[in-house]
């Protein structure tokens, strides 16, 4: 199976998103690169609105992710409550 990944700018807002990704995907690897953070995981990655809100301490819209997003790989299923990256087997 291949890895999906998401790359975010290394900003104050994005760090909460990364924290949420780490919480929801225990298998994910987080790679801090200069000015950006790459999170990759075997098969799939879940980003859940509820987890981000818990971390960031306010209401959060999944579309706000776009403000920090640099790149990603995988099929995307985006909803009001989650952002799900996955590969079909």
């Amino acid at each position: 199976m291949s890895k999906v990944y998401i790359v975010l700018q290394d900003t104050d807002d994005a760090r909460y998103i990364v924290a949420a990704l780490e919480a929801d995907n225990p298998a994910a690897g987080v790679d801090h690169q200069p000015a950006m953070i790459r999170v990759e995981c075997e098969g799939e990655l879940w980003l859940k609105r509820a987890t981000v809100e818990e971390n960031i301490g306010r209401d959060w819209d999944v579309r706000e992710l776009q403000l920090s997003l640099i790149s990603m790989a995988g099929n995307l299923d985006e909803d009001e409550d989650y952002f799900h990256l996955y590969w079909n087997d």
Partner: protein
Amino acid sequence: MSLEIKTSALKPVRSTFANLERRFGDKAASRYQEASYDLQPSANFHYRPIWQPQYELNDVRRTAIVMEDWYSLNDPRQYYYGSYVQVRAKMQETAESNYSFFEKRGLSRHLSDDVKAKLVRYLLPLRHVEHTANLNNVYASAYGYGTTVTQAFMYEGVDRLGIAQYLSRIGLILDGNSGTSLAEAKAYWMDDPVWQGVRAYCEGTLVVSDWFEVAVAQNIVFDNLLCDLYYSQLDQWLDENQAQDVGMLTEFMRIWYKDISRWLDSLLKSVVAESAENKAQIEDWITAWRGKAIEALRPVADEMLGAEAIEKSTLVLDARLQRAGLFK
């Protein structure tokens, strides 16, 4: 000639300040953490204050509540000065546009004289209550311990001043900027028997010396009753009496109440979970203040909304206390 472009990553020597590294490990810290943790001086004070020589300048013993680490009481909203100001500026922008819409369209024309008189008699005197709330929160901020706690009280104090100003503006809208409604409301506050219980409660909270007890009496007991009575029950009454437009002018308070509830619920929950002694102490305080607050608000609530109003608010308060793990 071939050109090879290489990137080389420079790893910073440290990711954050040493105090945060000790708390959270060596990783990039959030602005909230950097602007909140361990900021209050805690050691090496030169002199004890002459007005309270039994304590240091910043002293955990100013409240009966004992926490192993006061900084474990963080603010889930993660407000430091910058983020607090940004959030409130946004809320104020919305409120301002509501007020200017209300004034531009002259929506106060549609309010009956009964409704206007009711607002002057019951809503406007609240600005004096808000002034007390401002003093109490700033008091908790001044004598409290731990910047994550005291800064939140400071913001709350400033919020209350802002709410008092919005209430005053409602008065100015009603009386065409003459200020007569504010003078009338002040007279109700000073002399009308219906308000004397609330006034006495306010004065009572102002002379309590334990800052956490002040916060319990003001922010937890009184405010939960008050906000339910005014910003939910009175709002509904206005809605049913062709005065729903007034809701535009109090929307700021509803958003604010939701916002501070997150912080207060988490504060209460953490303090209660810390130890059985804390829990017992807070239950004692609540038992003492809850009865007083209900009796103080009862005449206002009865006249304004009817006999069952204060009971409904009491249920809201009790549900909130239960959720924080109290009285179980």
